[in-house]
């Protein structure tokens, strides 16, 4: 008897291809194809391994770059002593282990989630891990990519494998056409606002639909980057012709006959039409306008024409208390329009929004205008290559002539691990991914938005609707 095989999801296809051993209870030992290390946890993992008399199982599948703890000032001036020590340790330990390091000032250095795709290290169908929760970014190329902690990092170094329980599957379909002024960042923030910061917990989320197909690869990376803010440690998008075109010819991408072999395999990856997901969500993108967060979780988000919520209007006491606490932290008045809120800082950067297309979108708003008095605005390119490409286009001059500061690549003020912080009580519009309490510095107040919205805030000196500033 022949039974029809049920359709399989993108997740299932990648997952099954990586199972080394089935351990029962939906848990498998998975092969890890790419392991990315950074300065914050890379040397610690390698030192842990040494301490345990273990060696790196596959140094040729492991790649490292400093990003978190290095200064992004010109010449890396002002890198904290501890950051310098971590960089020195990363150099020594990767060299000893035979792991390729993309060091500062070299093409290849940058935010780990910017360089993986850029170098052609991140490929469709690959399992990719890194000791950083935004590893989900690489899912934009159709990879199964997720963040891990220090212990799992050591496990991967020692074994090139990881024990994982198969997640549930969710498909989010973005359908329709984007309105003017709306970016990938707005789509994913709107989704988080819609299903909440825990809406994706326990799921691998596949983003699909016409609006995703229409997005360029860098926009898809932004979408997947915020999966973890939805609660999902993995987010992925089926590869297509745009994906192959993006990857082709990159430094570590397959070449020649192997390229054709790889693409043929990647074409098999998209979810089958009859694949069944544990949860389905549909978003009409035509209803989405530029988004900005008002609170201390990415789910605290409104359209830029919206208002700060009024806790008194909320019946549930726990939710009311949570909103009161968020407004208190953020220094906002209930019920006021979010647009017009004065800002002190603007940060354009991070693994969410520091790629060339992000900088172009911000520069388009900044061109020929001036940063408002009293606002400090930084542009931190995601990688050495993004920086050089942007300079070649003259984007650095657009920014500096407008009064933005043009920096060296790194994570910088997204998580403030390198001493680059927003001062206590100050308000920042940031293209990064987290508006958590103290994320950009103790008592700093963060509003998340797209690169164009951030540039608009810098020019206006207040949260502003970018649609009124487009040319």
């Amino acid at each position: 008897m022949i039974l029809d095989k049920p359709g399989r999801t993108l997740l299932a296809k990648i997952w099954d291809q990586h199972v080394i051993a089935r351990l029962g209870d939906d848990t498998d030992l998975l092969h890890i194809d790419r392991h990315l290390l950074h300065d914050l946890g890379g040397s610690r993992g390698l030192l842990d391994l040494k301490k345990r008399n273990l060696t790196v199982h596959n140094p040729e599948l492991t790649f490292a770059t400093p990003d978190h703890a290095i200064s992004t000032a010109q010449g890396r001036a002002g890198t904290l002593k501890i950051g310098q020590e971590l960089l020195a340790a990363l150099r020594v330990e990767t060299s000893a282990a035979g792991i390729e390091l993309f060091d500062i000032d070299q093409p290849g250095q940058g935010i780990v989630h910017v360089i993986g795709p850029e170098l052609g290290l991140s490929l469709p169908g690959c399992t990719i891990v890194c000791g950083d929760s935004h590893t989900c970014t690489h899912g934009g190329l159709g990879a199964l990519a997720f963040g891990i902690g220090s212990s799992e990092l050591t496990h991967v170094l020692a074994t090139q494998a990881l024990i994982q329980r198969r997640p549930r599957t969710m498909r989010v379909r973005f359908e329709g056409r984007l309105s003017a002024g709306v970016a990938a960042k707005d789509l994913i923030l709107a989704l988080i606002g819609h299903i909440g910061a825990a809406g994706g917990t326990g799921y691998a989320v596949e983003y699909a639909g016409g609006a995703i197909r229409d997005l360029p690869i860098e926009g898809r990376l932004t979408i997947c980057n915020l999966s973890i803010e939805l609660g999902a440690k993995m987010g992925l998008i089926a590869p297509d012709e745009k994906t192959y075109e993006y990857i082709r010819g990159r430094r570590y991408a397959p070449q020649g006959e192997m390229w054709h072999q790889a693409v043929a395999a990647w074409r098999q990856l998209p979810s089958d039409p009859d694949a069944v997901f544990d949860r389905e969500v549909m978003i009409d993108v035509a209803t989405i306008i530029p988004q900005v967060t008002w609170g201390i979780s990415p789910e605290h988000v409104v359209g830029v024409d919206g208002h700060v919520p009024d806790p008194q209007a909320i019946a549930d006491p726990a939710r009311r208390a949570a909103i009161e606490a968020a407004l208190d932290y953020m220094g906002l008045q209930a019920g006021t329009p979010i647009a017009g809120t004065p800002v002190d800082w603007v940060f354009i950067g991070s693994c969410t929004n520091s790629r060339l297309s992000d900088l172009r979108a911000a520069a388009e708003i900044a061109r020929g205008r001036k940063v408002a008095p009293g606002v400090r605005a930084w542009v931190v390119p995601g990688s050495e290559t993004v920086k050089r490409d942007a300079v070649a286009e003259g984007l650095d001059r657009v920014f500096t002539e407008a009064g933005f500061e043009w920096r060296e690549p790194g994570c910088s003020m997204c998580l403030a691990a390198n001493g680059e912080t927003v001062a206590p009580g100050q308000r920042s519009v940031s293209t990064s991914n987290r508006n958590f309490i103290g994320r950009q510095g103790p008592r700093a107040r963060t509003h998340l938005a797209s690169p164009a919205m951030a540039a608009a805030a810098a020019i206006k000196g207040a949260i502003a609707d970018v649609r009124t500033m487009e040319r």
Partner: protein
Amino acid sequence: MPQAFTKLTAIAAPIMRGNIDTDVIIRIERLVGNAVRGTLGKWAFGSLRYLPDGSENPEFILNREPYRQAEILVTGPNFGCGSSREGAVWSLQEMGIRAVIGSGFGDIFFANCFQNGLLPIVVDQAIVDGLAAEIGATQGAGRITVDLEAQTILSPSGRQHPFEIDPRRRAGLLEGLDEVLLTLQRDDEIRAFQAADRDARPWVHSAGTQA
């Protein structure tokens, strides 16, 4: 290597705000460096626990007796969301926390807990709320018992709540197993997989040799 966990009867503190992220559990600057372990207990929940001048915030529950002695946290939804920093787990353990009970946890935090022997228990929100209410009714004096072998929580008033847990993870915690060594016992399988995969997907394995 994780601490083993079998059974614990202890003071429990409810921290019921939702979406407590790992940045709030431990700030990043406390984790920059390769020698931070053992220094983190006093910095856990720093932004809630201390006032801007560095003094203790008397409003924060873990600054009050008997909650200072808590070894269990009863948490709001989505506790431990956000960053993958394992220092969040280390800092909780270093301040004496051995189990967390909530209706859901951040996926990476949840995995990190098991790696260190901190037991995360997922139960319905109604049970979480009930436990928090009972603790409050006893001004924190009522203890909670968490029994991993029996997979039960015993509330201060003696209500028993069963909980589900992945059998593999349960076994790992009960015995304090070292996952790295367990996986290395399968190294032949890992190498056999890689040999076959090199034929099936050569582009995966040759990346580092093409530059």
